[in-house]
């Protein structure tokens, strides 16, 4: 087996990635976080080269509770897979129930070994809500409650990322009347060190990637707001940056303005009260975003949006 530690260029070449493409990726990551591109790209390159030379990769542990796996899918479907490969040259995805090969006790062993070997060093991603009702019996894995697993895994993590609405504030299972007592990480495990909240339903995989890359580059979370969300991802109001904003109002679905970039506010679009960076058209490899496709923003990054943003459609008329 090759035991040399190739530098970044060699490693990229092995993956069929040009330096130019890697820099473009760094540019996209900088763009997501609103950082200056050139300096950030060189910082990422330098950090990745150092990490590639390291003997061991810090592990990533991804735990799922009351979820739909949509945040996992978003991560897999939103990032250049070749770049994801590079990410996994600098970290080691050790536990992810949807993707990992082993099952049962052998899967559990992958988790236990990671927790034992890398205390205080691994990255934890949490997907899904944690039910506090029925003594924790609404979500059981290996005979344990979601809460007890979350407490143990998060306690030893260097950084914990709550990916998606469910792990941020309970999300859909936590919508009123919250039958299972579903809550997010911050409420279930108070006092989490280095908690980063990434709301959204699902979280945009590009944003999750950008936060991971930032952490690997700087060794700390990006600047956070009072809700522990990265300011640069959740600090801007969609409406203010929306390409439709300056255009004539859409009066009903399918009218000439709807077909030509008109503003959807009158139909009930939540863009005016939602802070997120979707206006960058950054879903699925910069392909589109809901408002771009003529749909209303449902405000899915807002706290408890299933209760605070609903009814989603009743606000506007659809016809004249």
């Amino acid at each position, binding site marked *: *087996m*090759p035991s040399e530690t190739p530098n970044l260029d060699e490693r990229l070449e*092995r993956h069929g990635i040009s330096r130019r493409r890697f820099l473009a990726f760094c540019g996209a990551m900088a763009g997501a976080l609103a950082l200056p591109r050139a300096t950030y790209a060189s910082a990422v390159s330098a950090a990745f080269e150092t990490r590639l030379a390291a003997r061991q990769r810090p*592990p990533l542990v991804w735990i799922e509770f*009351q*979820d*739909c796996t*949509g945040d*996992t*899918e978003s991560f*897999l*479907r939103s990032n*250049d*897979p*070749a770049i994801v490969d590079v990410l996994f040259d600098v970290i*080691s*995805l050790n536990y992810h*129930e*949807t*993707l990992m*090969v*082993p*099952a*049962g*006790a*052998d*899967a559990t*062993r992958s988790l*236990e070994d990671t927790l034992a070997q890398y205390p205080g060093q691994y990255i934890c991603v949490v997907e899904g809500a944690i039910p506090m009702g029925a*003594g*924790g019996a609404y*979500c*059981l894995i*290996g*005979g*344990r*409650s979601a809460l007890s697993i979350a407490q143990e895994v998060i306690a030893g993590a260097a950084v914990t990322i709550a990916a998606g609405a469910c792990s941020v504030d309970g999300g859909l*299972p936590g919508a009123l*009347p919250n*039958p299972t007592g579903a809550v997010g990480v911050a409420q279930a495990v108070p006092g989490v060190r280095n908690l980063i909240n990434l709301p959204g*339903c*699902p979280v*945009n995989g590009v944003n999750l990637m950008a936060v991971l890359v930032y952490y690997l580059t700087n060794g700390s979370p990006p600047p956070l707001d009072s809700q522990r969300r990265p300011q640069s991802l959740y600090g801007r109001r969609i409406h203010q940056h929306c390409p439709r904003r300056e255009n004539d109002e859409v009066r009903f*679905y399918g009218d000439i303005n*709807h*077909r*030509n*970039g008109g503003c959807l506010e009158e139909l009930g679009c939540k863009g005016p009260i939602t802070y997120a960076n979707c206006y960058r058209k950054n*879903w*699925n*490899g910069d392909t*589109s975003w809901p408002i771009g*496709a*003529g*749909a*209303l923003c449902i405000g899915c990054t807002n706290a408890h949006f299933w209760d605070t943003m609903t*009814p*989603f*459609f*009743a606000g506007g008329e659809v016809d004249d």
Partner: protein
Amino acid sequence: MKPRHTPETPTPPVGPDTTAQVGQPYKTFLPIVTNGPAEPTPPPATKRLVIDPLTRIEGHLRIEAQIENGVVTDAWSCTMSFRGLELILKGRDPRDAWVFLQRVCGVCTTVHALASLRAVENALGISIPDSARIVRNLLAGSQMVHDHLIHFYHLHGPDWIDVPAALSADPAATAALQRSISPWPNNTSAYFDTVKTRLGGLVGSGQLGLFANGYWGHPAYKLSPEANLLMTAHYLEALTWQQDAVKIHALLGGKNPHPQTYMVGGMAIPLDPNGSTAINNTMVAALRDLMTRVQTFVEQVFLPDVLMVGAAYKDWAGIGAGAGHLLAVGDYPGRDGTLWLPSGVITDRNIGDVANLDQARITEEVARSWYDDSAPLHPSGGVTAPRYTGPTPPFDTLDVSAKYSYGKAPRYGGIPMEVGPLARMLVAYGRSNPTVRSAMDGALGHLGLNPGQLFSALGRIVARAVETKLLAAQLPVWLGELEENMRSGNLSMLDSSRWDPQTWPASAEGFGFTEAPRGALGHWIKIEGGKIANYQAVVPSTWNGSPRDGQGLRGPWEQALVGTPVADPARPVEILRVVHSYDPCMACAVHIVDPKTGETTSIKVR
């Protein structure tokens, strides 16, 4: 109609000295079972295996199985999470329902949105415009293709591919193997050498990540080193491919997962060949390009791989038969309402006799599920009240003689039914659908199998692949229909005549069906005073992963596991093969709605 299943026999007591724990709760024991050498450990006469978490699926599944003399003699399918969307939906706006329900699952994203829209539209008497029908078919069809590929390579694949064994492959021989099965251009020795080097780097690092603690070297793995390397390369290529494939959703739905352009009454995305923010000529060209790439990968990579793997594992055409009863609700309506994939019911493996589906015969039971007891009820009038009566966590084993799952037990005329690609393909086959017949016969001929052998783990894989091929070829046809509408000025995407709740009756009931990748999906809704009064879903993995019912009849997975050989109970890869062949999705399987008691209505489905 008599069920083929035999009711369960009482479970003999299992002594602790003969119990192997696979998947015991961490921290409560030291691991007894480790990833041992390739040689099977001699099994004691009877073992109770627990596999929890059963990975490479969506959600939280636990399997308990009893093994005697190297064969599964009984099994229990335990769904381990509950979210309670039922109470959450009550009293909400029915026009919002699809947004909530879409989040039942992010893997098979969109299917619950579609079923919900159809249920609400059925209740309110709405017919959607033709172009909206086509766009919905494109969203659902591309979802199915995407999902089937991911399942084969990333979820099911490691059950058949011995990844580290690929390190002893000869790249030149692998290239020759690739050229012998397909014209796919990634077929050079240098290419496979690169993949092998990357794999070597991973293994050499000592940090195997997702691949650590697999059952590598297990004698049940049968592929040659070269086939293992080829499949490992395609595992990686499929990750790239799928990112492209979901762009169909991003264009038509704004994003994926959870596309957002649906509306009760049609679609929010407008259609206009010259509109700057509509499905326009440019977008149609982009969609056509994506569909071509999707189809090329399916034809040149996925299908040849399935046939190659299938040929190496032909003995799996005799394992994992399951219920032997199949149910399909059909999907992909054409302009005249005819379903491109037909509905129907097959019992006792009698492919030649497809009965019409009568949805009034569907019931759900909770005798062995963590809900308050009730009689078998039709979904439109079901009663659901979650009540966990299992052991207090942490625990080692469940008392499977009592209630043991959050999954309910759906039955059709009292019989457990398998749903999914096998059901869809055999219902179409039995109904003499020429396209399906020809494609299925081609695959069967290649593998030297007869249609009866499709009732098996391998049969499900073959049916899923054939369905993928047919759908990938059909997507451009549907796109052509959309172009035709665009050309002829048939641009309407939304029927808003019933948008205003004031146009609704005081009380309305409806249902909607769709074929999710994993099988038949049905939603039932009751609307009162403009609000959701009742909502009920019967979901593919609820059918397939059902626990026992009141008569003690096993669910399809449970039945399929009985008779499955397990060479080494410490490394039960065979159990994973059987369960994964159904492509489980547990977030879907858990009962999502808690309706109040309502009268059962009888609605016939053509």
